[in-house]
């Protein structure tokens, strides 16, 4: 009787992915968490424990910025949840309607912005909304609504909402595609059975389709949450590292970048920067856990 042979091929096939993932994701993540516990004092790296986190949350000059960025991040997330996801679901519902013509064309057209670079999207929208060269003021003028135009990206009260909506425009294709796929997987028999019971049209969507795609909506919410709390590019390309005007568009990503790498005369502080990055990691981790254990496990699933 020989012991069961060690199955080498499993290790061999796993190795590339594990090695690459460890080198570019796991190691930097843990190193960042470690770096957050150090500080530089007189050119020496010193272990300071949780001091950086006390500073971040206790020192008003840091905590004000941190809470401001966190608050802005929640607003950014909220706009995506109330605007992007319902629109995505509605678009998917319309696209999956069997009698809609040119569905493939609409699907591609709506999805294309998602594959564009943030730099292009930020730059294009900045031009569109520019009070000087932009087409937004002249378009509003053409329909007699010029008075509604404001330099949105330059006003404290509108800038963050405007940027959130730009981001919604860019990413609305993702929930649309996921929901579209979920809708297509609903078997015809279920809908036909409903039809026999007199459930058609809108009520078929609310009573049959929506409950069946709820797990997909849950996944989309969590993807939106993670994506929004890691966001950085759009704000950085359109408003710069100071996230103007007056930090009204500052989110955790830009706050972390400014601290870690420095900006203009502000020298970079990798240790405080890591502390902010760790805080971001913790927030996302808590959010994802709440969702996974609080909502996902209780969600009712239907055998199709």
């Amino acid at each position, binding site marked *: 009787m020989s012991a069961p042979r060690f199955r080498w091929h499993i290790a061999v096939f796993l190795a590339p992915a594990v090695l690459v993932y460890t080198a570019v994701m796991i190691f930097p993540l843990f190193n960042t968490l470690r770096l957050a516990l150090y500080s530089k004092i007189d050119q020496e790296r010193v272990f300071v424990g949780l001091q950086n986190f006390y500073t971040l949350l206790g020192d008003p000059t840091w905590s004000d910025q941190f809470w401001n960025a966190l608050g802005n991040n929640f607003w950014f997330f909220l706009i995506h949840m109330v605007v992007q996801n319902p629109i995505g679901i509605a678009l998917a519902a319309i696209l999956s309607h069997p009698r809609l013509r040119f569905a493939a064309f609409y699907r591609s057209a709506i999805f294309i912005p998602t594959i564009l670079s943030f730099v292009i999207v930020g730059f294009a929208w900045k031009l569109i909304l520019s*009070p000087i060269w932009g087409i937004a003021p002249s378009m509003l003028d053409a329909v007699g609504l010029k008075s509604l135009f404001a330099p949105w990206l*330059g006003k404290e009260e509108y800038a963050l909402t405007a940027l959130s909506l730009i981001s919604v425009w860019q990413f609305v294709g993702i929930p649309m595609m996921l929901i579209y796929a979920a809708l297509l997987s609903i078997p015809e028999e279920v809908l036909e059975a409903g039809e026999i019971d007199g459930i058609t049209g809108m009520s078929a969507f609310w009573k049959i389709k929506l409950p069946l795609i709820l797990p997909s909506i849950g996944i989309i919410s969590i993807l939106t949450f993670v994506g929004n709390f890691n966001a950085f590019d759009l704000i950085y390309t359109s408003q710069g590292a100071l996230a*103007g*005007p007056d930090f009204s568009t500052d989110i955790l990503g830009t706050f972390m970048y400014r601290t870690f790498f420095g900006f203009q005369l502000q020298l*970079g502080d990798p240790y405080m920067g890591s502390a902010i990055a760790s805080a971001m990691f913790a927030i996302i981790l808590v959010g994802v856990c709440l969702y996974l254990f609080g909502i996902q496990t209780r969600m009712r699933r239907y055998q199709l």
Partner: protein
Amino acid sequence: MNRKFLALALASTALFTSTAYAEDVTLTIESWRNDDLALWQEKIIPAFEASHPGIKLKFTPSAPTEYNAALNSKLDAGSAGDLITCRPFDASLALYDAGHLTDLSDMEAMGNFSDVAKAAWQSDDGSASFCVPMASVIHGFIYNKDAFAEVGVEVPTTEAEFFAALDKFKEDGTYIPMAMGTNDQWEAATMGYQNIGPNYWKGETGRQALLLGVQKLTDEPWVAPYRTLARWGEYLGDGYEAQTYPDSQNIFTLGRAAIYPAGSWEISGFNTQADFEMGAFKPPVQNKGDTCYISDHTDIGIGMNAKTAHPEAARAFLTWVASPEFAEIFGNALPGFFPLSKTPVELEDPLAKEFVSWRGECESTIRSTYQILSRGTPNLENETWGASVAAIKGTESPEDLGKKLQEGLASWYEPQQ
């Protein structure tokens, strides 16, 4: 016999390699001035290599926004170039303190520069100088001469005349009185506050008093510029809140605006873009005959990597950079970046000449937030950006802004506590 031959052979190879070595010295220059790549390759490097056989130069610039971060990691990894272009004040001081830059105080050529010029690259006590000053930029206002003639406006010298001129342009309506936006924030501080400010805080007198803690940011000389900036808002173009720096440049060079609050670095770009005649005037003073103060900000220096393999060659280059010959080439190739050496340089560009002539009429100072005061958190320079924008937009009163900046500064800067 045999042994002798061997020794000879060895000696000759050693000699041979050492001469070959000397011919091959290549110095690499780190810089953020990627705009100047052509200038270095076509003018500066050939001029240096002609007079210094045996030393070759390689200019390897990176993007301005990435420079500091990239340079720091290269220096830590030991892969940085032999010569380092120095940002003024703390960014370079940090490199010196970390042992990345060599002390150059013993270089004879450093005597070609005034103390003010050297101050941007010295340790706080002034005992060590670690970069050779290369150039400074001067603030002022560039104006459209055609627009001034058309609307019939005289070049202003006092503040009252300045606002009268702006009013006239506003009334006339053909031109946007002043091209500036607040979207990118730094223009409001750099071309606004630091441009007109020195006339209020009396240049170096006020700046030193602030450093020593004798004056506070809540004092009149530091608050008054915000009060003046608050009046600028109505003369800027529609939607200036979202107007970016390139927008402002384009509005002015397309001839749509009359006045552009400027730094002299704009000159070469404007010369190629604008097809009308431009002039420049210095920041207006309060009353006719007042002493004028200008921001003549030390902006670029060059130092030596402490770990360079060719310290002799690097020193030879730095000595040359400190010479009048370099100043002449640099000043004329880059109008708007003014050489700092004591020997005056004959400039050809009329606009650049106008700017540099103010050095003779006015007292020079540097930007108030650059030396020491932007060392802590919150960062005074970055805070000044936000404050200047708030002043122009009128979202906060000048007094409140002064109070907020003072609180931030006092939270970490001892002389102000």
